[in-house]
């Protein structure tokens, strides 16, 4: 008894450690299954765990939504401004890309023309819808005179009329007062392109015998001295030959998208004071 009394503490400690190791070693092979103790504890705790978890969720929610997000409003505003600035930059970049493409085409056209040219930007349109004219940002101070040819990368635009020192009006080829000597590229049939409406022209004075087909490209003939030879005017969209009459009716769609024109070239040739 004295022995037990004397070594009580170390023996108990050893037994406890041994029991612990025994429990552990017995549970090692069944480490994926819940034993009785585990099941009891889990069952006992589950009614408590649920509400506590819910409460902690609420606390977390409060923390995240209100305490941690104190600066969110200002951050949100800053981010919105950033997005706006970035969107603006993207738009500017897109606009610059498109302008670059247009100007590149215009430059190619400029290179193909022997005569000196001046680039100009469209700044306005005709006040009324009865006439077809544009206002460009170049005038007599840039060397422009009335009667000069105005072209774009796609083809003929019209000719200058009413030139002031800083601006000029361009009479579009679709205006009723416009007349441009033209040739059908394929058959070399000749005529005069007259304006008809907003996006339509006609090839007049082309005799019935001339070979004109839908889809033919109409180019400038160079006659008259205003337009250089071979600049595209448009494409034939309709050919009508009546039973009688000398001429045929030929409708043309202009090569240039006139309502969306932004940059033009003025060929510094001819013109009148």
């Amino acid at each position, binding site marked *: 008894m004295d022995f037990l009394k004397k070594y009580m503490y170390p023996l108990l400690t050893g037994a406890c450690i041994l029991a612990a190791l025994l429990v552990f070693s017995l549970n090692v092979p069944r480490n994926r299954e819940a034993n009785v103790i585990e099941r009891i504890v889990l069952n006992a705790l589950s009614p408590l765990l649920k509400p506590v978890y819910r409460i902690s969720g609420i606390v977390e929610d409060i923390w995240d939504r209100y305490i941690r997000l104190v600066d969110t409003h200002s951050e949100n505003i800053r981010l919105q401004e950033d997005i706006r600035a970035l969107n603006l930059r993207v738009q500017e970049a897109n606009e610059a890309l498109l302008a670059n493409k247009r100007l590149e085409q215009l430059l190619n056209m400029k290179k193909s023309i022997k005569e000196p040219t001046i680039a100009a930007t469209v*700044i*306005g*349109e*005709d*006040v*009324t*819808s*009865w*006439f077809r*004219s544009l*206002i460009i940002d170049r005038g007599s101070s840039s060397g422009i005179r009335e009667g000069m040819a105005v072209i774009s990368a796609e083809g003929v635009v019209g000719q200058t*009329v*009413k030139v002031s020192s800083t601006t000029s009006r361009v*009479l579009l080829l679709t205006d*009723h*007062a416009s007349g441009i000597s033209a040739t059908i590229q394929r058959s070399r049939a000749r005529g005069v392109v*007259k*304006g*008809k*409406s*907003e996006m339509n022209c006609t090839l007049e004075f082309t005799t019935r015998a001339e070979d004109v087909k839908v889809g033919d490209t109409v180019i400038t003939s160079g006659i008259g001295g205003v337009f250089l030879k071979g600049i595209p005017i448009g494409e034939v969209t309709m050919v009508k030959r009546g039973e009688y009459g000398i001429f045929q009716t030929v409708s043309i769609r202009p090569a240039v998208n006139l*309502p969306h024109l932004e940059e033009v070239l003025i060929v510094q040739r001819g013109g009148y004071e």
Partner: protein
Amino acid sequence: MNRRGVLLLLCIVVASIVIQVSLLPVFIRPSFKPDLLLVIMVFIALRGSVESGAPLAWILGLLNDVCSGLFLGLNAATYLISFLIIKSISDRLYAESAFLFVLTVVGVTFVNFTLNLLLIALFTTSPGVVYSMFSEFFPRLLVNAFVASLVTACLGFDENVPST
């Protein structure tokens, strides 16, 4: 008209031309372009005096011609004639009526169209323009009436009409 009135009119006219030449073509089709200067002229004809109004109407028409077509003086003449027609009867009318203003704008658009047609046919060799004028007459008439109704809403027409 005092100095402030002249300045205000000048600003309105310049703004109208800029809007019509540079702003509206970007957003609307040519057929639906309103004739803002014509609306201003009608307003002057109904409210102003003959002495200051007649030269103003002519100048407004001239400004219209400067930014339109090839024939300088065409609208100047038609605006002046339209002004004188309105002025000859405006004394007998209740000029502050919004309905009358809209009706006058519609009437003047029609008169202006007829006079333009007549002058172009008589003095120029652009018969083709007649087709455009006819095809775009009704949209123009409606748009002018719409603009006139907006003007009446902005400038406080019918304010002195006694409520029944």
